[in-house]
């Protein structure tokens, strides 16, 4: 599973960092960095993070050609 954050919308609320700290990180006070390749054991947490993002900036899904069809 892959994740991408629309950082144009993101306002640095860090809800995602709280809920999936292995995938999302704050760099300094507000800049969000994350690993786009989500390990299987983090999938549930990232799904929670995506639901919790106050500006709905997190998209979780399969990449093209991953056979996830």
């Amino acid at each position: 599973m892959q994740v991408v954050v629309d950082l144009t919308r993101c306002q640095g609320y860090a809800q995602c960092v709280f809920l999936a700290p292995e995938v999302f990180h704050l760099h300094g006070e507000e800049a969000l960095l994350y690993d786009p390749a989500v390990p299987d054991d983090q999938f549930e947490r990232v799904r929670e993070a995506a639901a919790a993002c106050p500006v709905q900036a997190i998209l979780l899904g399969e990449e093209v050609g991953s056979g996830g069809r």
Partner: protein
Amino acid sequence: MTADTLLERITDYACRPDPYPLYAELREAGRVVRQADGSHLVGTYHEINALLHDPRVSVDPRHGLVRDPGLSEQEQLPFLILDDPAHHRLRTLAMRPFGPPHSPGRVDAMRGQIAELTGELVEGLRDRAEFDLVDDFAYPLPVTVICRLLGVPREDEPLFRRWSDLVVASADVQPGEEAAERARTGRQARVEMGRYLVDLAEQRRGRPGEDMLSAFVNEPDPALRLTREELAETAVLLLIAGHETTVNLITNGVLTLLRHPDQLERLRRDPGLLPGAVEELLRYEPPVHLRRRVPLVDLDIAGSVVPKGEPLILVIASGNRDPGRFRDPDRFDPARVDNQHLGFGGGIHLCYGAPLARIEARAALGALIPRLGAVTLVEDPPPYRRNAMLRGPRHLPIRVGSL
């Protein structure tokens, strides 16, 4: 009835079970609706959201034209009602032992504990023919969690509950004569509660535990240390906010699911919907209904001017039901997409404890849902708490075994 009595009607205890028709009336009446008492109500989503992000809109009651005479300029206030930069500094310091960037894994690490606690509470309900969801489950869970987190003895609950009730009552949006008296007793309770919490913190000085009070009082860097007054206000804020709100989310959750058996069944079959369901509850039945603001300059809101210093009341629970933002807003849909609700507010004061509240609510509903199939509500609507701002059932009596 005219629109300028809406606030009175909204805060009238009789409408507590269902304020939503009044909110619809508010949205119909305009973007900003002036009340007979001089305050201005805002109930549409886009306007509320814009005001939450507007740096010219203050949360500090001392900027109001009409203000509580007991409130002094020098008094330390909790960051909930302070503006930037003071708010930012305190929130950032309070965040250090709780969340990112300093403690990113802290709340995540509590999942195990929360699951365990939830399990114990559910276990306690087993074999009961009838129970009160509030007293037996939805209240003890967040209280225990916030006590452990802060480092407050759980046994002291009767003590701080009394203070907390007074503080919360004084913060409510309730027009009327007793307001000044409520403010006075509320302030008194805040002071006593602050003293109690600072004393607890002092006991940990030099002997830190894992809790947040320990972290605050043992901060080695003087630049990052809270003053005694700041510590008192912050600790009071966290203890109150940490247990007066989540209880409503869990209770509202169970109530809503019991009123929507089809959705309950859907969630039982697909637990993957749970995170979305919690967000939908925060939209559909949010624990916090009203927030207060003060404009620092004359504000033009969708063509109406709200003069500087006049009270602004954001009806966030109404914004959550605004058909101008949400399709079919009065429908409870756990699979709703594009759910940017206002349940936790927005902008710089967005709820500090939201991740914790979410984890608690998910754990609680996740554990209860499998058992809700065979229960019924004893009373619908249930009895509500008085507070209009923090709205939720006082009790939710439930009978096990249908008919």
